[in-house]
């Protein structure tokens, strides 16, 4: 009987010990989940120049008189341009410089000045386009697309205008000439 009592007491102790341990500490956790989103966004920095006055476009003397003069490259900066997502590219659309005089040009004359627009510092391949307006001003528009940037990026973009030419190097009719360049930064088109 004594042995049985001792065994029972030992069993009771063994059973009781885990109960005591469990009673000591029952922590509990709770969570507040916090979430938000960030939409895809592309922003072009404000251009350093919104107009590019080229002044007199023709030579007023010499063997090339009346024809397009040499025009130096023009640069426009767009600082802190960015896209906050991957897979973006630049598109550049240019309108050749056309005379405001819309009358049909005479033989030997032109009313269009073509040029090349290049936007650099976004992807490996720059966005570039060269206008190909006819002497009479037809087909002044042209578009080009740059390579795809594979990561979010912030950069100072540079637009360079150069390669100014007149179809067949004809004489330019008098008047005011105007053209434009439009830059678009956004998601690359899905192939």
């Amino acid at each position, binding site marked *: 009987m004594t042995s049985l009592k001792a065994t029972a007491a030992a069993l009771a102790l063994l059973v009781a*010990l885990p109960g*005591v*341990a*469990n*009673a*000591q*500490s*029952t*922590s*509990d*956790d*709770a*969570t*507040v*989940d*916090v*979430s*938000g*989103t*960030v*939409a*895809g*966004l592309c*922003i072009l920095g404000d251009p350093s120049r919104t107009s590019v006055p080229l002044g007199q476009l023709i030579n007023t003397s010499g063997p090339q008189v009346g024809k397009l003069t040499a025009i130096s490259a023009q640069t426009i900066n767009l600082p*802190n341009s*960015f896209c*906050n*997502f*991957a897979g973006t590219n630049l598109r550049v659309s240019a309108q050749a410089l056309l005379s405001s005089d819309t009358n049909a040009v005479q033989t030997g004359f032109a009313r269009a000045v073509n040029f090349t627009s290049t936007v650099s510092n976004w992807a490996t391949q720059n966005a570039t386009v060269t206008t190909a307006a006819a002497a009479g001003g037809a087909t002044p528009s042209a578009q080009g697309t740059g390579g795809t940037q594979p*990561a*979010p*990026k*912030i950069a100072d973009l540079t637009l360079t205008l150069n390669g100014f030419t007149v179809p067949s190097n004809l004489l330019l009719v008098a008047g005011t000439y105007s053209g434009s360049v439009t830059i678009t930064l956004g998601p690359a088109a899905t192939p």
Partner: protein
Amino acid sequence: MRSTYLIGFLGIVACAAPASAQSTGTVNINGSVADRCLFTTPSATISVGELAQPGSGTNAGRLDASKLDGQTRNLVGWCNGTAATMSVEALPLLNIDFTAAAPTGFDRRVDYSAAAVANAATATDTSVGAAGGGSAVSVGMFTGNVAVTLSSSSSPTSGLLVAGTYQGQVIVTLTPNVSFGQTSQ
């Protein structure tokens, strides 16, 4: 007169019986209540939508701190012991869609501070820096709300936020400890 004597005798017998045969047994009754804490409302959600500033100004695309700062939610719980403590761990919001290192000028992480208030005690933590919760504070015996409030949100470089979905979490822990001197002996 005879009737009178008989009644007197019976009375003596009745009084003498307890002195010679009484016995008392005792059943002791005891129990215990362990120190314990429990959340009866163990989860809540703060969903703030767009985290970046709109528009096209110099701050466009950067964290709009007003979206997180001041956000508050109530959890509900209790602790039944005087030694109970509460601690908070704030885990940063991370972009779950863009997991690579953020390019220069960008951030894919939003930090903040979290405070939990229960029984007039406040436990805090910030998600900035090393992982791990804040210090435990004594919360004692209470039942009711555990108010969780966010503040001081920021991104590591104040940079542009990479597009995507951001998720973080505040973990509040109630620990009962031992308030009545019980040991495991």
